[in-house]
């Protein structure tokens, strides 16, 4: 009897030791990794792309929501809490888009990434938020009480997001701050050149161009000015040039995802498939929408690929419009790998759709 107990205790000791070693191995491996690189966790893939640009090889970035997923909804999984537990920096929109994020941060038991701490970045800080509701009431649907939170759909907002991420990185790794600031400068100038073209950025400066574009005044300003005999509008390059045919184009979108994108490029959204944000379409709303589209001759519809695309195509078919279905964020469809790719693809797809008659 006694030797059986002995064997048992010996066996349980072996078991305990092997379990302990198993537990230690991954931890020490991770500790090594986190010493060399800053572990950044972001909510959306657009932030991932920007954080990579700013952080360079000094960071590893992972996103919680994939590019073809709905950022409003994330089902909690144990792996997400583990991910946040190991995060040095957590980047979220900071509005009420990711309502799932605060409980997840609580669950992760990582005090450094709580809102207000050094390891937390609110990507939307300093961005002029549009569509702020005048009255806050659930009767208006699933409204975002702070305004439209889909900030990553404007290239210009990308610069502010990058600034916010840079500030966060400097807080958690002060020694590399100048490296991050250099990358930030490069990223911002990349955005400007891709947005307006290099000649115009050199001539008018990024600040003025950015403000005019955000106030929807850029095209009319450029049309009225000349420099050394050539009209400024002819010097425009980048996305703003490419998207010029989309100016005043009337479209219908499913949800208010693309508010910032359409504003900056002068596209007019005249209706939504949803009667109110987050509320599924009802027969009366759909029939009045179809009537409106026929009356105003609207030929383009735009929807994120996580919405029920059959419905969008159904309505498009009824009014013989083109349905543009695309990812809302990078990595959500083939060839859309970075923050910059999304604008190339959105503009290309809308141009193709608007040319089909």
């Amino acid at each position: 009897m006694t030797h059986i107990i002995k064997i048992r205790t010996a066996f349980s000791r072996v078991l305990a030791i092997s379990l302990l070693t198993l537990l230690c191995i991954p931890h020490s491996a991770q500790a090594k990794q986190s010493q060399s690189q800053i572990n950044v966790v972001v909510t959306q893939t657009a932030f991932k792309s920007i954080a990579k640009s700013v952080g360079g090889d000094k960071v590893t970035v992972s996103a919680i929501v994939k590019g073809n997923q709905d950022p409003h909804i994330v089902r909690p999984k144990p792996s997400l809490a583990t991910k946040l537990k190991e995060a040095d920096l957590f980047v979220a929109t900071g509005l009420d888009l990711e309502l799932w994020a605060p409980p997840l941060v609580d669950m992760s038991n990582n005090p450094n990434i709580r809102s207000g701490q050094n390891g937390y970045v609110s990507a939307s800080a300093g961005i002029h938020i549009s569509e702020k509701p005048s009255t806050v009431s659930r009767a208006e649907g699933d409204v975002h009480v702070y305004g439209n939170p889909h900030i990553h759909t404007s290239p210009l907002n990308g610069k502010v997001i990058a600034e916010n991420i840079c500030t966060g990185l400097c807080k958690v790794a002060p020694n590399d701050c100048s490296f991050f600031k250099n990358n930030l400068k490069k990223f911002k100038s990349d955005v400007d050149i891709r947005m307006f073209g290099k000649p115009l950025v050199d001539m008018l400066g990024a600040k003025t161009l950015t403000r005019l574009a955000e106030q929807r005044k850029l095209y009319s300003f450029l049309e009225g000015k000349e420099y050394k005999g050539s009209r400024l509008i002819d010097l425009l390059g980048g996305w703003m040039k490419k998207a010029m045919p989309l100016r005043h184009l009337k479209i219908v979108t499913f949800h208010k995802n693309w508010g910032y994108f359409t504003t900056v490029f002068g596209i007019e959204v005249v209706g939504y498939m949803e009667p109110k944000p987050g509320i599924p379409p009802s027969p009366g709303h759909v029939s009045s929408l179809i009537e409106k589209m026929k009356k105003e001759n609207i030929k383009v519809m735009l929807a994120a690929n996580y919405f029920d695309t059959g419905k969008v195509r159904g309505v498009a078919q009824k009014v013989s419009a083109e349905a543009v279905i695309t990812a809302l964020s990078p990595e959500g469809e083939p060839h859309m790998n970075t923050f910059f790719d999304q604008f190339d693809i959105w503009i290309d797809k809308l141009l193709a759709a608007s040319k089909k008659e």
Partner: protein
Amino acid sequence: MNILEIMAAPFAECMVLVAIHTYLGIHVLKRRVIFVDLALAQTAALGTTMGFMFGIMPESGSSLLFSIVFATIGAAIFALTRMKNDVVPQEAIIGLFYAVCAALAILVIQKTSGAEHIDDILVGSILWARWDDVGIAAVAYFAVGVVHFLFRKQFMLISESPKKAYEAGLNIQFWDFIFYLTFGFVISFSVRIAGVLLVFVFLVAPAIMAFLLTPKLKYQLIIGWATGTLVTVMGLTVSYYVDLPSGPTVIALYGFVLVLQGVGLYIVRAPAKIAAARNVVLCVGATILLSLGVYYLGIWLSNGEETENTRLAEAAVSLRTENLKVEHERINAVEKHITELDPWLTKYLSQEQMSAYAYCADSLERLEYINTLPLKSTQRAALVISFLADSDTPVFFRMQALEIVKSLSRNNFEYDIDSCDNIEAIEKMKKALLQ
């Protein structure tokens, strides 16, 4: 746009659904396997989800094939689990099967990216029925109808009395498999258009109405089809004019009509009709009282507790503080910008003018400020010179500023707008314009 243009296809789809589901519903009620519909629907949905995992879009034909294959597997399982002597009721196995399939679908969705909304697709919506969907479903249902018509004796005998079927030497498992196979085939089509809930109601509600009125199959079918059509027309019309989601409206109306029918039959069939009518009136009164009670309970509870509204109010407050903070930061920024301006400007400009100039966001705004505000000519000249001296001023605005200098002095002081090194020109300007 009138009601027909948008509601015609959903209505036709409902008619096709009523036609086949009323018939199948009668079988289901007789067999006492009410939830077989939900279980098969969930199996078909699992098929669609699995297909999505391989990149097959839920609207495509290959996806339909996936769900039919899965429904066939489900049919085989239901046929095999029918026991001669019921140790475990088959309904329990069907329920368990439903739960396992639903759980598997959730697990598959978790491992597949972009599938958050696939459950919406699986739930379907009658409002989005298209004519080609209706056509395909009608052909498929017709085929099933033909099979059931040809073998009506076998199916009916097993449904009504499995014991007699055993005695007659029928291969019950084979016929059960065929029954569930055709059933699953029908469900695969219906659920993707109409959604699980509506299909379940179409299956059970008309059949119940018919069962309550007559035991004869022929009349059951006629009554089921007639009431099904009537309630659907009413439901879709209400949905259109009151602007309510179509499926739930039809379902709720079915519930309401069933209650009415039950009450009507209770009075008609009661031996003492007046007493029965009195009971009904009492029940209606009790229902009204109960509704009022729930209403006031809701109001009373919502006063004390933290509700959605308080959350929204908190958000509004934090929004206001956020706005104040932004404003404060802007004022700080202006103060910082003033220190960045040329210090000699203070000789010519007041403190307010300095901060207004510093408040301008970019070169264009500064230039507009210089051009449009009522300034003395030395003040304007001082600002233009400072503007031209700033190496950050973009070339286009230098050009425009130089025009102002020219208009003030008819001289450009050899200022080169493309160069960063204009120290001499700036000094000349200062001498000529500021003294």
